[in-house]
């Protein structure tokens, strides 16, 4: 078994008196793709935001390469440089061109030389077929193109893992495919990913493991085909019936 990259232990999160995560445990190993499935409000997004410290957790522990992120000596900004997060609504920076969106993190967070990162960024854009759009502003791109740029923006940080938060949910159905294709490519190349998604086909074909969340708990977890095709729990079965 390869090295554990991210480990969540009994993570709890409350907003006011509403408990969103009730003790979630999950591990993500190097080169592994894990899909989080579950209804809206089951805690998928919150879980991802707790993993990169955008949200402070109320109980349990989060470890990156065996290092607890709750240690007071840990700098959240340094943690986030190793964990890419891609959002449902892209959140590209509208005042920056595509290339500058990608350069912002490496240049200003990692302090890497601009010219060097620029060459890498153009290569990444080449891979997603958008090199010609490097100087365009995000609002000139389609939703699918914007989301692929957002993924590349995360990749340019050379993260140890990618968190993806329902990255196709805001897209026109005709544009979903191009984003899923990119994720499939990344999975083949061994990118470590934790993917919250409603795309069951993608989960079945690409994920190594699937975890089903409900009421802020992992109800069922296991190899993708086992969970999706032969769910053990009634709740999982009921959910899969509804999304099918």
């Amino acid at each position, binding site marked *: 078994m390869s090295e554990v990259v991210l480990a969540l232990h009994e993570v709890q999160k409350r907003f006011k008196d509403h408990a969103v995560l009730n003790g979630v445990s999950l591990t993500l190993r190097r080169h592994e793709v894990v899909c989080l499935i579950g209804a809206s409000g089951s805690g998928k997004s919150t879980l991802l935001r707790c993993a990169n410290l955008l949200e402070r957790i109320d109980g349990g522990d989060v470890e990156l390469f065996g290092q607890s992120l709750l240690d007071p000596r840990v700098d959240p*900004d340094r943690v986030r*440089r190793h964990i890419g997060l891609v*959002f449902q609504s892209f959140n590209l920076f509208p005042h920056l061109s595509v290339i500058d969106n990608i350069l*912002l*993190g490496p240049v*200003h967070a990692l302090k890497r030389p601009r010219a060097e990162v620029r060459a890498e960024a153009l290569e990444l854009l080449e891979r997603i077929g958008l090199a010609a759009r490097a100087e365009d502003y995000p609002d000139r791109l389609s939703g699918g193109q914007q989301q692929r740029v957002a993924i590349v923006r995360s990749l340019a940080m050379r993260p140890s893992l990618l968190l993806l938060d329902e990255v196709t949910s805001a897209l026109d159905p005709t544009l979903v495919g191009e984003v899923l294709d990119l994720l499939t490519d990344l999975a083949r190349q061994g990118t470590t990913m934790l993917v919250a998604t409603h795309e069951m086909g993608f989960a079945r074909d690409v994920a190594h493991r699937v975890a089903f969340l409900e009421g802020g708990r992992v109800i069922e977890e296991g190899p993708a085909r086992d969970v999706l095709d032969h769910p053990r729990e009634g709740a999982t079965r009921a959910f899969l019936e509804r999304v099918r």
Partner: protein
Amino acid sequence: MTSAIDGEPVPPDLFASRRQRLLAGRGGLVASAVSGVVVIGGLAAVFWLAPGGATMRYFFFNPHFMWQAFIGDPSKGFYSVGLGLLTNLWIFALAEALVLVVGLLLASARLSQSPVLFPFRLLATAYTDVFRGIPILLVIFIVGFGLPELNLGYVSSQSPAVYGCASLVISYSAYVAEVYRAGVLSIPHGQLLASRSLGLTHATTMRRVILPQAVRTVIPPLLNDLISLQKDTALVSVLGAIETTRAAQIYGSTVFNFSGYTVAAILFLILTVPMTRFTDHLIARDRARRLAGA
């Protein structure tokens, strides 16, 4: 009447009313011309034909007195309203530059998150509350008559115009700080999340992501405040600084004719109208851009 709801479709009347048709196209042009002449002509007639119309025109709009007030004649005891405007101009220029900087500092303090900056956050909040709440005229009195009483060397030995300028900076910084802050808060939260997720610090996020976007939305309201600041330089006259309003007042009490005030008003309009037009132009352009983007 029956309709599709009770299963009986009725051919609807699709024609515009007679009145609507009359006002469309060329008819509309004629209508606006006629209503323009009637309304504006009517207002002019009131001024022209009022019982005291002639007296009023003599005291406020007499070309001879207006010119005399404009060029001034210190040997006869009154100053040039035109030259007075130069004082308003430098007060405005200096105050504007300082207000933009001090306002930004205040807004940054209020928006800061570091625990170390807590006292600044508190002070900045108190400052904006207090100085948006006190009439500028009172601030001018307090600064203009208070600071000289302190006997604090340099601080207490400035000219009235400088105290007036300082008062404007004190008041307007509070307003401008709020404009900046509103601009920053108008940026969608996802922008902050995306930037922090890249591992950028709060300060870098502000500088590279939030502020560049906020500045664009903030320019029209900021220009509005600056137009207001331009006019409020007239308030400095209460300290005795001879700017354009004060010069007009002196002219009025020396020559017993108020045409100087009209001159001052026209001079202010010459300053402010281009800026209001420019602001409206920016607002229209931003709106067009937003509509195109949506």
